[in-house]
């Protein structure tokens, strides 16, 4: 049987296709702007801003249907580094980044950087410690990788069950953000919004699994990027005369700083482990923007960064992306693009927050009696902000903002046409769909590959495998929607806890499975379960106000305990077999056949021999 080259041909027309998509998206936005000028009803235009892009995503999703397992589970392993990196960055950023991170920057300024730095560090660690090796192995899911790497079916099942929990948490958080945005756009009820989102997930993911997810995800990422950039670029051009908000919000930030000093915003010196992350409720700004540490203590900032690094590097909804890279070299390059694109997204969020604070501080320092300007009245009417006391003069504490509405407040505060608010909402929905798509596909593949067919190493032949994969995705998306509809915890906290669980349970096992040859299946199992249980206990114990370790930082206890368990149990049990050692040796070398494909090939040969 001919051996396929490990590097596969890339479609040369991808750039044109997505150019066409982006033009279509821009056309929807511009048509909406023109029709609005002609006096068409705003609610119809908002509905078009929701359904128009969704129709485009659905078209791409159906056009990229797949019936070959390699296409369905790994997008044919021919996603070039740039597109793969874009997807990786945006599925990590998601609506959580767009909405909650922007709000965090606005409310606590510098301290919010720990989220961004942590994710960037996570990508660097993923690039160096995990990506090339997981790509060389080529498994479609993380449980498949660990199971085959240690030749242990119980480990595969345990990993599947443990990984499913953080994936559902992230999925539910993203869907919550998407539903809120859809409700602002259309005025639907929660039930209607969740139903529509579920249908969107089905039509964009089920036809082609990972292949559909990849190409609709690229479209959604581009749409989210475009739609979030346009309003802030316009505001930057008005305020600073330069259309590069990421690099030019410096002078604005200094003006904000001066006004904060005039206003006498306190400089807080928090205890080292303080971790006072603002929730989604309405609240006034807490501290000066550029001054480090007020909401978070220095120790909590560093530990939060490290916890994010471990979580992002081992996130089971991000790592399957690497199996879609055309080769090991491209998998490393994927992470380069992901780092760059995530960095730009994070700096955009920061600049939106700075411009928004500038509008607020300008209003506060204006001397004279407090007059509520029209934009603030509009924000208050929409529930994005509230004016708690109207004395003779505004102060920083008299105006409260909702964390998750800061991104949406910018076009209103800059008094841009209402269409740009719709565009920001479309960005939130697109960002949420990328992350939710990545999470549903990852969970769906785990459900079908590792739980349904997890009892045996032999994969089923023919269309059964694809149908099971489709069913898995539908079930996974349904689980996410149900969790989103019934769990009312702050979504940002949910995402941070999910990353903590990944960091504790999966990060040590995944890293050591490549870098420590002596580790065996018992050690892996012990590390997985120890990390998971310790993280759960720490999260449960960290709910209180005065807890020693905040729930979001559970990984800082989980990781050391998991590492200790891995070493202790591995060394106390017999060393791994020669077969397993051979797998590790092969994972470490980029050249040669993809291990997963080799195993599939030997299975096929065995079957043929039995038949003849």
């Amino acid at each position: 049987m001919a051996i396929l080259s490990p590097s596969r041909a890339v479609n040369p027309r991808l750039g044109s296709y997505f150019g066409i998509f982006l033009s279509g998206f821009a056309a929807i936005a511009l048509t909406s702007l023109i029709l609005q000028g002609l006096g068409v009803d705003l609610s119809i235009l908002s509905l078009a801003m929701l359904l128009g892009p969704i129709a485009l995503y659905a078209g791409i999703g159906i056009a990229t249907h797949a019936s070959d397992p390699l296409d369905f589970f790994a997008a044919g392993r021919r996603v070039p580094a740039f597109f793969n990196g874009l997807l990786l960055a945006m599925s990590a950023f998601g609506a959580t980044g767009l909405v909650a991170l922007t709000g965090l920057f606005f409310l606590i300024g510098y301290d919010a950087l720990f989220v961004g730095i942590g994710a960037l560090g996570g990508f660097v660690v993923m690039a160096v410690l995990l990506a090339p090796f997981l790509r060389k192995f080529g498994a479609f899911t993380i449980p498949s990788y660990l199971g085959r790497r240690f030749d242990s079916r119980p480990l595969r099942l345990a990993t599947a069950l443990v990984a499913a929990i953080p994936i559902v948490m992230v999925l539910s958080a993203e869907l919550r953000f998407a539903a809120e945005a859809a409700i602002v756009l259309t005025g639907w009820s929660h039930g209607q919004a969740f139903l529509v989102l579920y249908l969107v997930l089905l039509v964009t993911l089920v036809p082609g699994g990972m292949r559909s997810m990849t190409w609709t995800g690229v479209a959604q990422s581009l749409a989210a990027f475009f739609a979030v950039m346009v309003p802030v670029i316009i505001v930057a051009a008005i305020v600073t005369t330069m259309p590069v908000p990421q690099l030019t919000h410096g002078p604005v930030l200094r003006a904000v700083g001066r006004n904060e000093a005039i206003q006498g915003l306190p400089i807080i010196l928090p205890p080292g482990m303080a971790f006072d992350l603002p929730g989604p409720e309405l609240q006034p700004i807490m501290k000066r923007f550029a001054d480090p540490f007020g909401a978070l203590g220095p120790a909590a900032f560093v530990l939060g960064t490290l916890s994010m690094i471990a979580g992002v590097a081992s996130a089971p909804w991000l790592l399957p992306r690497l199996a879609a890279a055309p080769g090991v070299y491209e998998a490393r390059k994927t992470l380069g693009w992901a780092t760059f694109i995530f960095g730009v997204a994070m700096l955009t969020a920061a600049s939106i927050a700075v411009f928004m604070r500038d509008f607020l501080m300008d209003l506060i320092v204006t001397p004279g009696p407090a007059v509520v300007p029209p934009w603030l009245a509009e924000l208050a009417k929409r529930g994005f902000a509230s004016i708690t006391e109207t004395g003779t003069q505004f102060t920083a504490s008299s105006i409260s903002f909702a964390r998750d509405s800061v991104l949406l407040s910018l076009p209103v505060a800059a008094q841009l046409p209402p269409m740009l608010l719709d565009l920001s909402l479309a960005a939130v929905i697109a960002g949420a769909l990328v992350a939710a798509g990545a999470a549903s596909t990852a969970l769906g593949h785990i459900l079908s590959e590792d739980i349904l067919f997890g009892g045996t190493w032999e994969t089923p032949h023919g269309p059964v495998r694809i149908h099971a994969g489709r069913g898995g995705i539908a079930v996974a998306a349904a689980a996410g929607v149900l969790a989103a509809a019934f769990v009312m915890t702050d979504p940002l906290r949910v995402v941070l806890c999910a990353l903590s669980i990944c960091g504790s349970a999966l990060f040590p096992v995944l890293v050591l499975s490549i870098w420590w040859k002596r580790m065996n299946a018992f050690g892996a199992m012990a590390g997985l379960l120890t990390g998971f249980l310790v993280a759960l206990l720490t999260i449960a114990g960290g709910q209180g106000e005065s807890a020693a370790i905040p729930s979001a930082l559970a990984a800082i206890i989980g990781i050391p305990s998991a590492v200790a368990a891995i070493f202790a149990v591995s060394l106390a049990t017999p060393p791994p077999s020669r077969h397993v050692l051979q797998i590790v040796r092969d994972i470490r070398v980029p050249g040669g056949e993809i291990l997963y494909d080799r195993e599939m090939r030997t299975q096929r040969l065995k079957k043929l021999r039995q038949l003849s």
Partner: protein
Amino acid sequence: MGTSRKDGGGTNRMIERKERKPYWRHTKWQMLASLAPFFAVIIILPLYADRLNSNKFLGFPLGYFLAAHGLVLIAVVTVASFVRQQDAIDHWHGAHEDN
């Protein structure tokens, strides 16, 4: 990417057995060389932002600028240099993919 010591012509050439150990040693050092400075910077730099903030760069308070823009740049450069170096290591030991 030129520095190949042995240039086998086969389509499915594997790394030679005796090259595996040196290849992995080289890879481990590269891993440390990429991660150690990066971790040192991302842990230490944000803690000193306060003192740097009195300086200005591009209109930004310097501490904030370094912790936001600076760390993005450092992360991108770290990954890019890792990709280049590790690719050179792969070719040197004949461990690269065939294409």
